[in-house]
């Protein structure tokens, strides 16, 4: 640790408690950061592609997650290193923005860092490298636009959408029934999509899971499921043409917020209070009944007496329904959430074709299905599977597929997958590099090499000879001037991705390149790492 000296040669301390901090500077710092970034990328490298492997992650509480979703792995890894945290952020922002390609973006960033390290060793200034990368990424993104294709789909022709979702799902454990799940995802997205505005609100799609059954039993429900049952065991289990009162007030005597006391000092008062109380319960039920509700869904609990009264008056009710679910129910049934009994009016009731209770397995597991709603825009994907981890992983996979479908509705441009887009970009960037005078040329070439790493990892994971396969595909692309050649991961026999129907979204790919470049630039600009020491 270097000390600073003033003009008289006396040492002075710049940082507080300097001795107790570790500090890395200059090329050392850059190398350490690059190594950390690479280490994170290395973990994810084996998860990429249809033959990618999964990771087991054990949380601090001992819970087990099995996944190959990049964002989830990094999130659960609980990293300590600052640069590694940046990579986690990178994957997360890809997840928020696009929803898919979270692994690819980290692998890409890792490759860029690896290339940068070599350039640093040659003595090229990090900022020049960063600038070179920036230029190259712009070339790549433009090239992607150039090779992208638009395709048409409509509510009747969903095949292209299903194909794209299948590409996403094929790298997950659920690829056994990817067709089924892809169809579900596409149908779900289309039913909530606003095709006019090209917008999809994914909040309207609820993904629920319950262990048991098999993956093939996963279904799309045009309505909402709630993991609750009727408040009284003897209430009807099925209600046709339900008119639903959605309440956020409990079936209990009111509890004013201000502090108060009701004093009882005479027998008369005691009795009036008692009568009032009874009347109160009666009123509440009566109000619901008066507006014509045939089902009450309440966010809070019921008093036993109220519960019986409801049952008695033939008004089925569900209690303790969570806020989010309540909102979804309100959206789906077209009802309004009513905070007070006094404000209950017939117009505020939601409507649903069928509300039924369904039980599962040998335990007393029950769920409430609300179907054929007035507003069919809210849907639920109900996942079944052999064990808890499987369900969780399926949920994540479905989320990815939903995001992909949404992106396609927003922007219907696609590029071909299987690494073909990366290879094509790599060729384009390589060719463009020569036009740039100056040191940046080297950085641009390095960028082209880094682009190769994704197809390389794909080939590696699929058990192919990575270098041979990649160079063969590359020459084929150049020779035939066709950007559709990629890595044949599934051993189909052709490496024309167009024939294999492997698509990815254009914005997803563009975002990957841009985000990866951004993070790498940020890491390259760091030349000093000061951290409190462990000791």
């Amino acid at each position, binding site marked *: 640790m270097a000390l600073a000296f003033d003009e008289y040669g006396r040492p002075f301390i710049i940082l507080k408690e300097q001795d107790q901090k570790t500090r890395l500077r200059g090329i050392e710092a850059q190398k350490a950061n690059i190594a950390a970034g690479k280490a994170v990328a290395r973990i994810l490298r084996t998860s990429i592609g249809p033959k990618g492997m999964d*990771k*087991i992650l*054990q949380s601090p509480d001992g819970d*087990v997650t099995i996944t190959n979703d990049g964002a989830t792995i990094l999130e659960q890894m609980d990293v300590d290193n600052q640069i590694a945290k940046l990579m986690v952020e990178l994957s997360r922002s890809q997840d928020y923005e696009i929803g898919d390609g979270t692994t690819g973006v980290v692998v890409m960033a890792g490759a860029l860092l690896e290339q940068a390290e070599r350039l640093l060793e040659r003595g090229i200034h990090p900022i020049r490298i960063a600038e070179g990368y920036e230029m190259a990424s712009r070339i790549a993104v433009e090239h992607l636009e150039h090779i992208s294709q638009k395709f048409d789909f409509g509510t009747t022709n969903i095949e292209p959408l299903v194909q794209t979702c299948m590409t996403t799902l094929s790298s997950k454990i659920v690829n056994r029934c990817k067709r089924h799940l892809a169809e579900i995802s596409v149908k779900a997205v289309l039913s909530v999509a606003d095709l006019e505005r090209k917008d999809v609100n994914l909040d309207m799609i609820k993904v629920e899971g319950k262990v048991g059954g098999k993956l093939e039993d996963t279904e799309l429900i045009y309505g909402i499921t709630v993991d609750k049952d009727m408040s009284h065991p003897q209430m009807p289990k099925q209600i046709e043409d339900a008119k639903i009162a959605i309440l956020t007030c409990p079936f209990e005597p009111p509890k004013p917020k201000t502090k108060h006391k009701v*004093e009882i000092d005479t027998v008369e008062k005691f009795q009036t209070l008692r009568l009032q109380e009874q009347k109160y319960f009666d009123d509440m039920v009566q109000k619901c009944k008066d507006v014509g509700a045939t089902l009450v869904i309440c966010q809070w609990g019921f008093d036993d007496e109220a519960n019986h009264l409801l049952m008695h008056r033939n008004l089925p009710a569900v209690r303790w329904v969570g806020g989010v679910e309540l909102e979804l129910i309100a959206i789906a049934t077209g009802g309004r959430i009513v905070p007070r009994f006094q404000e209950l009016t017939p117009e505020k009731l939601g409507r649903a074709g069928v509300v039924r209770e369904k039980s599962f397995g040998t335990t007393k*597991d029950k769920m409430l299905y609300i179907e054929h709603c007035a507003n069919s825009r809210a849907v639920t994907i109900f996942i079944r599977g052999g064990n*808890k981890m499987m369900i969780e992983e399926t949920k994540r996979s479905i989320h990815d597929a939903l995001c992909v479908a949404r992106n396609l509705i927003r922007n219907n441009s696609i590029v071909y997958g299987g690494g073909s887009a990366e290879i094509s970009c790599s060729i384009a960037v390589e060719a463009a590099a020569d036009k740039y005078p100056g040191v940046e040329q080297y950085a641009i070439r390095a960028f082209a090499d880094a682009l190769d790493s994704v197809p390389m990892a794909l080939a590696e994971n699929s058990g192919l000879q990575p270098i041979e396969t990649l160079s063969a595909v590359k020459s084929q692309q150049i020779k035939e001037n066709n950007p559709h050649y990629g890595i044949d991961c599934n051993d189909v026999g052709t490496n024309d991705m167009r024939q294999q129907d492997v698509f990815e979204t254009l914005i997803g790919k563009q975002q990957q390149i841009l985000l990866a470049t951004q993070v790498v630039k940020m890491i390259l600009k760091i030349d000093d790492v000061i951290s409190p020491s462990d000791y």
Partner: protein
Amino acid sequence: MSSSISYWIKDAALFLFLPLIQGFIRAPELELLSTALYPMAIERILKDDANEEKGERARMASFVGAIAITDLVKTTLGPKGMDKILQSTGRGQEVTVTNDGATILKSLHIDNPAAKVLIDISKVQDDEVGDGTTSVVVLAGELLREAEKLVAAKIHPMTIISGYRMAAECACNALLQRVVDNKDNAVKFKMDLMKIAMTTLSSKILSQDKVYFAQLAVDAVMRLKGSTNLEAIQIIKKPGGSLSDSFLDEGFILDKKIGLGQPKRIENAKILVANTAMDTDKVKIYGARVRVDSMSKVAEIEEAEKEKMREKVQKIIAHGINCFVNRQLIYNFPEELFADAGILAIEHADFDGIERLALVTGGEIASTFDNPESVKLGHCKLIEEIMIGEDKLIHFSGVEIGQACTIVLRGASHHVLDEAERSLHDALCVLSQTVNDTRVVLGAGWPEMVMTKAVDELARQTPGKKSHAIEAFSRALIAIPTIIADNAGLDSADLVAQLRAEHHKKECNAGIDVITGSVGDMAELAISESFKVKQAVLLSATEAAEMILRVDEIITCAPRKREDRM
């Protein structure tokens, strides 16, 4: 870093023992080892106590963990399987004796992630079909054991997975072709149920009286009329007597005493089932409290309170009932009032009891009593106090709805009773599932052999490396009859070979007859299993094996520091 030398020495020593400890021990030394083997020039990426295992090493850890779990429960499989004693670490060090796979695995504290996956599938199997909890773990374990060999032979896990998938599908189809469905023939179907119940029970503690208990279980389930709601079947355990003293009661038995001075026997009872406060009926308006300035006022209010309770009791009596069952406490005062009116009042019947009673007697659970004419009362022919062993219980007989019933289990000790309950529960679950899905297959290794044959056939027709995986799948399937035979102390190699030869004939019903120790005709021996259970075993086991096989890295986060919470 003066201590680094000593770490290195420790590492070297550990390296030799690594394969032994890999599965279970999470010693701090292990992490040091992993950092040492994967040198990172910079500081570590993960937190201090976190642990990362990669590639072969991760795979080995999962294999070892999964296989260890399998070996643990393996010996409980089959009619001659042995039991395990589980001692809890909690207060009292309670002891459970069981051979129910799910119960054993639930009580284990496991750190190995792959083992956790297996425990989870066993739990799901229990929730979903109720039986086959051991088989599913054993099959998954055997699949992994075979996979380990293939991985060692340099076959990529993904290839193994696709082979397993093909094999599982093929096996399932093969089984599907041989199922027997007696849905339309009530007599035959009842026979099927009986057979299934006996097969399930034969591996449990109840095997001595399996005919008796199978009959009990079948009768109980037939009453449900297709519903899978096992809640309606109540199991009461009373120590004393022998297991064969257990009986099925058509009515309902409530483990409660009758209040003092109240009739002990009521014929043509009208029952009001209630959930209401019968202690002090509190004023529910928030913030109400009593404030008085003299003793006489207190007396007055007390009188008013009593009056309120009396009124409530009057209202209840006005329903024209002669039996009142409440979920909550009934205090002495109202109890006395009930006794005066000649009404049998039962307090503190727990929630399940109430729900069941309401179901059995056809009444509704009431909480308000203002309109007696519209409350549905429950009915039964006779309520009486009966004695089982030394305990007095209340028996409701001649009830209207035939769905519910009570099974009273008798046995020498609590452990026997607990285990008997679990066994019976398994049987009931399987039966209720079979009533819904009436397809039935033979048991005792027969389904495995049928599947093996089909899978072997598939392996021969499949080109490429996958065929190795498919073959491995069939070997894993064979492991189940082998284990059953081994557990029974038979010559498994010989028996399984015989069985295989038998199965190459057409339409063969051969399975392992554990009692005589030979290959026998399962149709004649009346050993059957539910198709649904077998299918669930096959699918979940394959799914779990697939899941574990796909893993190439295990990252264990730093355990949460316990001090934080205190």
